Each structure stands twice: as C-alpha cells, then as structure tokens.
C-alpha cells in the first residue's frame, strides 16, 4: 500500500514537473543560440537545419515558418531597452541605425503572432518608406494616437512584439555583438 502511494506520488510529481517544464519552455521561447543586442533577440539557427529541439517543438506548436537563413534574419523585441514590457497605451520610440542589409521591415504583432489591429490598417514599415534624418538615422514612433513623422499605430493593445527583419544580410549565426549589428534603441515614453 505504501509502495503504491509512493509510486502515485512520484508519477504525479513527474507529470507536473515534466509537462510544466515543456509548457514553460515552449511558450517562453527558450531556444539556444540567441543573439541579444539591446532589447532585440534573434535566433538565426532556427532558420537552418541546425535548429535545436526546443525551437523545433515551438514552431510545430505555433505553426510558424521561421525565416530561412539564406533569406534573412528576424529580431524580436517585447520590451524596451530597460526591460520594461512594451505597452500599446504608451509611446515608444525606435531610433538609430540598423545593421547592413539590402532592406528591412519592421512589424507589430500581438503575443500570438497576429498583426495589431488599428484604424489606419498600418501594420509596419519597410526601410524604403520611412523618412530619415540628414545623417541617415531614423526614428519610428509607436503610439496609440497619430504622431508626426514615422508613426505606427498600436491600437491601444496591452502587450505587443516588434519584429525587425533584415533581408539579404551578413548578420547571422556568426554575429555576436552590437559592433557587428548596430540595432536601434527602443525607448518608452509617456503613457496615454
């Protein structure tokens, strides 16, 4: 009898710990080989056959097709540079320069990977449509209400992710630091 209870206890612990860890790993995106530069994180290996088992399980679960490494690389930011989660009710500026690439796109998604709904039907910018300063740097403002310049509407959504995709770029598995890939700063401002 004591053996039975002990076994049941062990199995219960195993199920909770095992499945809990799996759930946690797959929803938090704990793939290996991440490059983190400021608020931005990319997993270039996820776009190759060298993809690790965690990323493999995560894409099978989400249904996402990761960008192939011969195509480009995607950087994700869900917080600002100080680590505070991005809030659609606040103003956030993305400013600076981007790593070498033929072009880039910047897109807003909710945490499940859906585009962020807004009245303007504007979900992102490409490097060819934004206005730049005289020195070639740029600033993009993410805010719930219209702003002058490069404005991306957040639709007042609670939490969101910004994805900066570089296409035809030398940035990849060999990239380590901000010197190889200067990413723009993500700064949170006033909240509505």
């Amino acid at each position: 009898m004591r053996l039975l209870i002990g076994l049941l206890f062990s199995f219960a612990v195993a199920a909770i710990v095992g499945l809990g860890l799996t759930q946690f790993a797959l929803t938090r995106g704990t793939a290996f080989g991440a490059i983190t530069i400021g608020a931005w994180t990319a997993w270039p290996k996820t776009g190759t056959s060298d993809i690790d088992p965690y990323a493999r399980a995560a894409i099978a679960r989400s249904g996402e097709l990761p960008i192939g490494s011969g195509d480009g690389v995607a950087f994700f930011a869900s917080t600002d540079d100080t680590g505070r989660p991005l809030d659609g009710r606040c103003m956030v500026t993305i400013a600076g320069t981007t790593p070498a690439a033929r072009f880039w796109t910047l897109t807003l998604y909710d945490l499940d990977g859906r585009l962020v709904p807004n009245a303007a039907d504007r979900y992102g910018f490409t490097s060819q449509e934004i206005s730049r300063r005289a020195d070639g740097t740029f600033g993009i403002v993410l805010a719930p209400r219209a702003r002058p310049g490069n404005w991306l509407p957040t639709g007042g959504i609670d939490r969101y992710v910004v994805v900066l995709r570089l296409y035809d770029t030398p940035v990849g598995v060999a990239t380590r630091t901000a010197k190889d890939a200067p990413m723009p700063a993500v700064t949170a401002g006033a909240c509505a």
Partner: protein
Amino acid sequence: MIRWLLWLLGGLVLGGIVHLATVLLLPRTATQDAYARLAATAPVNGIVPLPAPTPDEALLPFMDPAFATAVCRYDLASGPLQLRVPVSQAYTSVSFYARSGVAYYAINDRAAGRRIIELDLMTTQQRAELPDDEEITAADRLIVESPTPTGLILIRTFGPEPGLMPMARRALASAQCRTQS
C-alpha cells in the same frame, strides 16, 4: 520522511525524462503546424498565392505583411520537382521547409544571380539514382535535396510600399512548381 524524499527525487528525475520526451515527440504529434494549416488551401505540387495577413485572419503566425507570398506543398513520391520563379524588381526569395517546418534551404534573387530562380528538388535517394552522364549535372542547374519526401516551398516577393503590393503579387503569378515528366 527519508522515504518520501526518495519518492520525490524519483519523481523529479522522471519529470526530467517526461520533459525531454515531450519536447522531442511534440513535432511529430502537432496537428496545427504550418504544413497542416496549409494543407487545406494548398494543392500538392502546385502553386497557390496566400492571402495577405490581416489582424483577424492569417494562415500562419508572424507573416511579414510587406511580402506577397505563394506556397507550393510538395510530395516527391511521384518524382523530383521542378521549380521556376522569375524574380521581381524588388526582391524575391524561395525558402524550403521540411514536413516539420524546419527551414533547410533558402535562396534569394541575388544569390541565384539571374532573372529566373530555377532549381530541381529531390530526395537523397532520387539524387543518387540520377545517371552520372546526364546533361543535368553538366548544366548549371541547382539541385536541392529534401530531407523529407513532403514539405513546403515558400515563394516571397517584396512590396517596398503598400502601393507596390499588386506588382509583387503579379510577379508571383508566373512561378511554376511541378513534377518532372
């Protein structure tokens, strides 16, 4: 007390095994992976354009709205596949995904180096069966080996601004994906 600690320890070790096993087995049991999501819309060995993603509807999560996308769901059981993609003015890329969604190969217009991206897709076995003296090895055709007999090819063209999206979509219309006869 000691006995319970031992049972707990046993449970934790077993939990670690359960965790590793589920992570490794999950890709095989997933019912909502990219291949399954596209199976309803995409015919086998043919090209179909995907609707542009909107907040309410997107076939796949995290699609880039600045691109026009078409997909070829392939099955190499009836022979190797021939892919022809004329490149658009802006940017064109072709990405290959195994049945599980692993991106095993991707090429863009500049790497292809000409106006048409042309390649043959086959399994390792089909490649081994290719006669050595065949023209195909002499010609500068690109041969891609698929790790699985089925999978997905994503053909994407860039629309630098919303007004240029129709042009990007038109560029996709002449892409071809078919079995060699």
